[in-house]
């Protein structure tokens, strides 16, 4: 299962811990290998397209958007995205405010909507610098924002998970939801980028 391009490397401390714990859970009959494989497959199957659907719906349906901002979990369930354990807070970008998400303590991330987080999201550099110098970090992602736009960093420290609702790109009047969703990138829902231009 390891992705080491065929080269032998000894297991790291945490890899060894994961293997030991997994084998113990299976040996003691608490989990089965099949259940673990199914969960891994389900995790890999969740992609940012789920989040993009939510954003596109909010762009075309103002009352859905209001419900989404009020209670992100309940609004996602309207779309058939069951996320019962997740308390989803959706933060809306406007010309005055740009939102960006980080978890400085670990790597909390709305996996059910965005899938597996990118490695940089979990890196020490992103986690420490995004709260300290967000404008410099965003510029490194290619996003230079005017000082007239306030940057609102959200540190995902506890029970909430966050999704950025980007602004709908210009030139998309009359587009349907599926076409709009194709513009919504993972990074635009984390807040380190804008949606693709129309």
């Amino acid at each position, binding site marked *: 299962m390891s992705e080491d391009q065929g080269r032998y490397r000894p297991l790291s401390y945490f890899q060894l811990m994961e293997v030991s714990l997994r084998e113990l859970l299976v040996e003691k009959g608490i989990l089965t290998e099949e259940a673990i494989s199914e969960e891994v497959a389900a995790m890999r199957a969740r992609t940012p397209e789920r989040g993009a659907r939510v954003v596109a719906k909010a762009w075309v349906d103002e009352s859905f958007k209001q419900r989404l901002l009020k209670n992100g979990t309940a609004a996602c369930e309207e779309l058939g995205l069951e996320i019962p354990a997740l308390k989803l807070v959706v933060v809306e970008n406007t010309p005055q405010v740009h939102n960006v998400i980080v978890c400085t303590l670990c790597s909390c991330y709305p996996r059910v909507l965005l899938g597996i987080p990118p490695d940089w999201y979990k890196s020490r550099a992103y986690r420490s610098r995004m709260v300290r110098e967000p404008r410099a970090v965003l510029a490194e992602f290619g996003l230079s924002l005017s000082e007239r736009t306030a940057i*609102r960093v959200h*540190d995902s420290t506890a*029970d909430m998970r966050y999704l950025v609702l980007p602004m709908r790109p210009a030139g998309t009047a009359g587009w349907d939801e599926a076409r709009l969703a194709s513009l919504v990138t993972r990074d635009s829902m984390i807040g380190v980028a804008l949606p693709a231009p129309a």
Partner: protein
Amino acid sequence: MQPQFVTRYPALSPTFDIGQRVRVRKTAPLGHIRTPFYIRGHVGEIERLCGSFPNPEELAQMRDGLPAQPLYRVRFRQKDVWPDYQGPENDTVDIEIYQHWLEKA
């Protein structure tokens, strides 16, 4: 004050209102703490009441974390948090903080 998410745990009553200025306790207990170190001692404003959730410091000790702690989002001005912050006055950082970490400012 209505929380954003209603939970069913037996919970403490919320003692802070939206817009109220609060200070994060400046203390460093051992254990699993969900209050980032960089924000301890700083003053911000209550942005919303998220709901009430079991205390993670207790959960980490295999206890039930009840009564649940009200959890707020607190908004801090970046210029208050980092004296040499490079950016405008209205840049902010919002952080979830449990009630027992907050006091009136």
